[in-house]
């Protein structure tokens, strides 16, 4: 089974790929085509990962770089997980190619363009005011200390991330997480308005310059404070902080809220007293699930909730189906729609509805809007709701 690991050559460029031994190793593909067959958008790509590597090896570089094919890569880690050579396609090879594609694209799709420009200017892809990043704290119901105001070291620095901090349904996750951290007696704080996007999706869509800028700004902000470890609600941020930031100088233990809570389940269990009465199906996110193999943690949490029964979808654990939101996909829906491509989240929600569950549980803030939209489009929103695992835990907590 492929294992996620720290990126050792963070500055690998396409030139480096073709010129350095480490880069050339990435092209040591046996051309089996598993990647092309497993890719959720493989049917729509002229240059699937297999063909792309073949073209690069034979020197047809400009041909590969002059199409917008790779914008359909939603970094689901399926090609990486199934590659018999264990090549780092999703998080190393494809972003290095995408970076060059983005530099050559005559027109970057408008939705992606505004998300990237907003992230650069405001530190979040929605273009919301950086001064309102911590506005959700007022409605948290429990104190959420801001590290700068606290004036002392904390055990856990919680990186809330953009969709959890700004998006109204994401804020439900933020409020739930705050309640759980309080219930567990965790010594935590957030950065408040000083926090900026961690930038993983910018990196994976090929906007490396934007990622580098965010990483430098974030590293400088984190360095101002003393804290034991990092915690985040966003699997993409988890990946960046765990595997990319360390190679660039920032090295702290990092956790995602789902495994963090799973590890403290014994302390939490006596407090989980409210009977929920839900039939739940859990969606393994590509990053937390397939890339980090954290499949048992969310299921252990859901099992511990009173009155809950779990049902599995056909595609689960490492074989999960992508919601289509990673690697910039979150801001390319209009691009895919214009090309007539299917919406991957619709495919996932159809499978979820077929289980007869009434709750679709998730662990990634991108999935809430994606699946809620699909439920509405498919007419399933009267039968099923989408909830982050943290929202369900908070619901089961005694008032």
């Amino acid at each position: 089974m492929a294992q996620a690991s720290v990126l050792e050559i963070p500055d690998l460029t396409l030139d480096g790929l073709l010129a350095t031994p480490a880069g050339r190793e990435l092209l040591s593909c046996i051309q089996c085509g598993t990647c092309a067959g497993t890719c959720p958008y493989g049917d729509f790509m002229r240059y699937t990962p297999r063909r792309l590597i073949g073209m690069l090896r034979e020197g047809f570089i400009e041909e590969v770089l002059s199409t917008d094919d790779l914008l359909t890569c939603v970094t689901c880690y399926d090609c990486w997980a199934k590659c018999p050579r264990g090549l780092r396609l999703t998080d190393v090879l494809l972003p290095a190619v995408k970076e060059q594609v983005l530099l050559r694209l005559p027109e970057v799709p408008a939705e992606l363009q505004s998300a990237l420009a907003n992230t650069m200017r405001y530190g979040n892809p929605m273009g919301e005011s950086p001064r309102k990043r911590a506005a959700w704290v007022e409605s948290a119901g429990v104190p959420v200390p801001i590290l700068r105001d606290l004036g002392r070291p904390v055990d856990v620095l919680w990186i809330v991330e953009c969709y959890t901090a700004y998006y109204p349904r994401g804020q439900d996750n933020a409020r739930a997480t705050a309640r759980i951290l309080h219930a567990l007696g965790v010594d935590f704080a957030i950065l408040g308005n000083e926090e900026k996007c961690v930038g993983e999706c910018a990196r994976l869509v090929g906007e490396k310059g934007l990622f580098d800028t965010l990483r430098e700004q974030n590293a400088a902000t984190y360095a101002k404070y003393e804290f034991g470890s990092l915690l985040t609600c966003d699997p993409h941020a988890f990946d960046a902080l765990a595997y990319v930031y360390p190679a660039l100088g920032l090295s702290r233990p990092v956790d995602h809220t789902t495994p963090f809570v799973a590890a403290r389940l014994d302390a939490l269990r006596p407090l989980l007293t409210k009977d929920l009465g839900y039939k739940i199906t859990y969606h393994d996110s590509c990053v937390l699930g397939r890339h980090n193999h954290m499949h048992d943690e969310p299921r252990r949490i859901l099992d511990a909730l009173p009155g809950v029964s779990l049902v599995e979808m056909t595609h689960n654990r490492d074989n999960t189906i992508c919601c289509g939101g990673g690697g910039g996909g979150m801001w390319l829906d209009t691009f895919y729609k214009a090309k007539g491509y299917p919406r991957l989240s619709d495919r996932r929600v159809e499978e979820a509805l077929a289980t007869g569950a009434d709750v679709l549980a998730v662990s990634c803030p991108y999935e809430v809007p994606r699946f809620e939209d699909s439920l509405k489009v498919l007419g399933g929103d009267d039968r099923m709701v989408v909830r982050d695992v943290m929202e369900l835990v908070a619901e089961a907590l005694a008032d």
Partner: protein
Amino acid sequence: MKTLVLLKMVPDVVEELEVAGDGASLSRDFLRLIINERDENALEQALILKERHQGTVTVVAPDAPEVDDVLYTALARGADRVVKVTGLEEGVGSAEATVTVAAALSSVAGLLPVDLILTGCQAIDDLDGLVGPLVAHQLGLPYVGIVTGLDVHPGGMGRCLREYPGGVRGSFELDLPAVVGIQGAEKPPRYVPIAKVRAAMTSGTIETVAGSPPGALPLRVVEMKKPEVAERAEMIAGGLDDIASRVCEILAGRGLL
């Protein structure tokens, strides 16, 4: 072909705007400035013309917070020279800044004469669109504004499109050199990856020229106020019958039933 693009920074309305203590200007406490959207379109149109006909694009902007980022981005997008005009007091009005920039253009080495001057036809702090006409007046050039498409032809002739209500479009010919106020470029402003902007910050240069702000202009801001909140919305609560009879009562009261 030599093209000059005039850019300026305007208040970014992503942050809430507050009136300063003097009651006649914006509070600078949390104010952030952003490139005027129509000026960004003017730059895009200039770059499209450069790609089509070769030549050079020079960008000139009054000094302001965050203007350096905008000028480096202009270089990354394809501008050849970027210049900022210093000496303006922070928070100075749009008309003063325009007059200062127009007067300083002759101090930019090797710039004038140019074939074309492009700028946004409006800004959120200049709905009358004074920049183009003021610069044209100062340089003794013709001006045409609210332009959505522009090309140049041999023999120093330009042809531009203007939009009118009802979907009507007018095509105009103009003798160059001229000043053109751009409403929208032929296509949306291009995205330039941040790596290119960072490279421009390392290798590019922002030239500066000193401007001399004019004395008091005939127009000045006397008072600035936030819009007054209208309290005309009434939320009708209660059961269906209560709501229906209240709606009827309101409509009847206005002679509509």
